[in-house]
């Protein structure tokens, strides 16, 4: 049977391709080369499928599919709008690169249970696509939970006491926030508005007003634990016990971006920007996000374990997106959307570099990294680019997003937010530049006899560093998509 190619087919395929990948990986489990070939094929196929949707969305279409009527009036349904499109492109673009990296990393470190690793990865990507394209809160919640569960085995990968404890914190916080706050919030919306669909302008206007809006907003924002707003951020450092490819794609891109994406989507399409601006008791979000940005940076400053420092940096950078969305203005949403892209490229590069050092030099602590850059120039070069992007230096992606975020803050006359952004930039420089300095300008110890990491690892991190630079030079596509979110979804 020949299925006519339509955007609807592509939406369904975005879920089916990773699912087929899962089956293929399992069947090929005894032949590692074939198994990795399946992963790579699935990831590239997914990228092509997702890219095929881009022209439609740029043309202003919002293709939608309803899978099944799960509950009366609440279907499992998908609808591609610009914000989801951006997120899906970022995640699916980084999956092939990360798969390449995984091959080098997992083999280089002789990790066990690699089939389970690749299977869980494919499921996680499927869930990410489900969240990105979700047409209502229920669909989003369903795939949000699938993502939590599919990443649990990845966090617990090492199966030792440390991994068990980390995985327990990870699952405990993510499940308790989602079941404890997000699910009741969704049911509250359903009971009040009679719908849970994402609609341009929101669905709550006229159904709710006053301080209860603030309470519902709080349940949503803290219920989406993956956005790592303080104080529900502890799962993210705990997740660092996972192998580095997991930290790189999932805990710097797919999982955390699912969180901030959901936050943005709820603000734009459930509450509605105008509605939130008009209600009292919603301003606190800006301050919580601002506090998270600064506090997480201060904590990051004091971490010696490289991956933990990166994790706290992620907590801080995620709140850039939240604070920007919390302006409740179209300009803020553009800044948030661009930061989703920019942070993804920069942070995955940094994690790739951390894993590369772990593989080649077996070093996890910053204080041991004197002179690593001289022996691993590619790795540390990429790390430097990622660092500059985090700080927001021109020629990197971070500058583009920071520009729009600051623009949003100025436009909304938010002095507090400007202050936070300046402080954060200084702090970023304070915890990233010393690593770069140490790696290149301190002399390595006598016993440091190692070279670069395996070739796939190096290729992957050069590619993501390249993307970080490319986004500065060619920001047109993400910008066009971001601007059409504000123009109505």
């Amino acid at each position, binding site marked *: 049977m020949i299925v006519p190619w339509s955007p609807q087919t592509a939406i369904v395929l975005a879920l089916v391709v990773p699912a087929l990948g899962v089956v293929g990986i399992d069947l090929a489990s005894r032949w590692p080369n074939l198994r990795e070939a399946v992963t790579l094929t699935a990831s590239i196929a997914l990228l092509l499928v997702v890219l095929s949707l881009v022209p439609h969305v740029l043309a202003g279409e919002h293709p939608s599919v309803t899978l099944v009527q799960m509950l009366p009036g609440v279907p499992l349904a998908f609808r591609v709008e610009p914000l989801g499109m951006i997120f899906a492109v970022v995640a699916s673009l980084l999956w092939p690169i990360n798969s390449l990296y995984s091959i080098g990393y997992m083999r280089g470190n002789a990790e066990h249970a690699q089939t389970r690793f690749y299977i869980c990865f494919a499921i996680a990507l499927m869930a990410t696509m489900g969240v990105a394209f979700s047409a209502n809160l*229920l669909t989003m919640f369903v795939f949000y*939970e*699938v993502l939590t*569960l599919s990443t649990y*085995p990845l966090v617990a990968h090492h199966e030792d006491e440390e991994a068990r404890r980390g995985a327990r914190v990870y699952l*405990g916080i993510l499940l*308790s926030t989602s*079941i*404890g706050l997000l699910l009741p919030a969704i*049911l509250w919306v359903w009971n009040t508005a009679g719908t849970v669909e994402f609609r341009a302008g929101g669905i709550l206007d006229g159904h709710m007003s006053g301080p209860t809006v603030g309470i519902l907003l709080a349940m949503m924002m803290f219920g989406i634990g993956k956005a790592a707003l303080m104080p529900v951020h502890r799962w993210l450092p705990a997740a660092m016990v996972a192998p580095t490819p997991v930290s790189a794609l999932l805990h710097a891109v797919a999982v955390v971006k699912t969180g901030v994406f959901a936050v943005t989507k709820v603000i734009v399409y459930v509450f509605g920007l105008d509605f939130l601006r008009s209600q009292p008791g919603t301003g606190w979000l800006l301050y919580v996000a601002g506090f998270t940005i600064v506090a997480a940076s201060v904590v990051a400053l004091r971490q010696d374990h490289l991956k933990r420092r990166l994790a706290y940096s992620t907590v801080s950078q995620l709140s850039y997106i939240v604070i920007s969305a919390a302006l409740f203005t179209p300009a803020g949403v553009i800044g948030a959307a661009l930061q989703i892209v920019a942070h993804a490229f920069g942070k995955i590069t940094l994690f790739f570099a951390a894993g590369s050092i772990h593989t080649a030099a077996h070093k996890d602590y910053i204080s041991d990294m004197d002179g690593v850059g001289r022996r691993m120039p590619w790795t540390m070069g990429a790390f430097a680019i990622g660092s500059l992007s985090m700080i927001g230096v021109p020629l990197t992606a971070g500058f583009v997003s920071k520009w729009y975020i600051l623009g949003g803050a100025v436009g909304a006359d938010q002095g507090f937010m400007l202050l936070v952004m300046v402080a954060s930039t200084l702090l970023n420089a304070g915890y990233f530049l010393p690593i770069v300095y140490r790696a290149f300008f301190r002399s390595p110890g006598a016993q440091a006899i190692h070279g670069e990491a395996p070739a796939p690892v190096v290729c992957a991190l050069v590619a993501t560093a390249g993307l970080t630079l490319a986004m500065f030079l060619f920001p047109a596509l993400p910008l066009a998509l971001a601007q059409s979110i504000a123009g109505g979804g």
Partner: protein
Amino acid sequence: MNLVQHLPVLQVAVPLVSAPICALLRSSERPAGMLQGRLAWAIACGVSWAMLVVAWLLFEAVRDGGPIVYELGGWAPPWGIEYRVDTLNALVLLVVSGIGAVTSTFARRTVEAEIHPDSLSLFYGAWMLCFTGLLGIAITGDAFNLFVFLEISSLSSYVLIAMGNDRRAVAAAYQYLIMGTIGATFILIGIGLVYMMTGTLNMYDLAQRLPAVDHTRTVHAAFAFMIVGVSLKLAAFPLHLWLPNAYAYAPTAVSAFLAATATKVALYAMLRFAFSVFGPDYALHQLAFQHILLPLSVAAILVASLVAIFQANAKRILAYSSVAQIGYMTLGISLASVGGVTATIVHLFNHAIIKGSLFLALGCVMYRVGSVRLDRMAGLGREMPWTMAAFVVGGLSLVGIPLTAGFISKWYLVLAAVERGWWPVVAVIVVASLMAAIYVWRVIETAYLKPRPGDRDPVAEAPAAMLVPTWILLAANLYFGIDTSIPVGAAAHAARQLLGGGP
């Protein structure tokens, strides 16, 4: 004569007749031949599947054509016994016969391993009696007949539990017998009192005549006796003490069968007595449900979940979890709204398949490892991948993760509480879900993330004859987590019928 017209009586008569046939297959030769046992199993299994077909036909007939009334032996009510099938009991019949069919298919291997070969045919005889009793409770429209079926199911389940090969099984069965008998007696006293006041035993008739006398103390007393009696059978907190031991020490297949059906049928009896017989507007409902049942349900949910977390035996974890889940169901009743009762009935259906599948998965473990203590289960994730995967899926459903049946239950329960604006109740439900996550995760972590204990030999995966029934129930778990039209549609319809909000 049309066979279809007689479906209601076939639903009960066929298993009733098959019970003595199973028992009569007892072998006289020593040592006993396995053949008779196998034959008894084949009969029990075949009849159970046939009853599932009957229940499905009844369910469809009721869904399309409204309630079915069947006069037993042609005697018109209120003199004769009447079977009355509406949406609610059609759904309960479907649950009982479905679980009966799957668990009896599963039973053969574990029963041969756990029960003395001499007793095999007696075991299946008792099993079929229990099955008959449970179906009878659900289908009958006569209050006294309900009591009779209740006793049939109870007496046979005491026997079934006592057959467990753990010596504590006898004590557990005895405990259950005492509590169960008190409960049954209370129900009988209640039925006697309403009979005294109205002169009828037919539930439909009772519903017509009770309003005239429902202010009398006798009727109040009858109501109290009935509700307390049913609560004992239901294992409603704090009358649940018989349940954990009974479930933990019963033969594996019996645990699965009873956990998934017995309390559900008792819950059905409660719904029937409270709403169909006494009517939704009965004066004592407010007192009984909102002032007594609500706090007790909340206590059941929290206390039993907490106790479950600290159990070292996986079967006991599930048993305490059942007490908590029954708390969810009575909580739905105590919300006293269409939404609440819908949630109760949805959860009745979903919990049956959840607990059934979990107990079957543990049955596979029991069969291979010989124990379901957590420390013995370490490392099983690699040795019995299908079994433990089954436990994981069932466990996720118990926690209420989306795409499983348990999520649908949770959705309706929380929704019902939100509708009433009872936010503390919402908090209780979600906190208990997280406690469920903890006790389920203790098992999962043990099986997957801990190495096999040194003194336990590696075991093989359970045989397909056991895995297939387990996965049938799990498939149901997943199916009813995505396509919810059958349980939700029927539950909403039944709740409106019970609360008088139209057909």
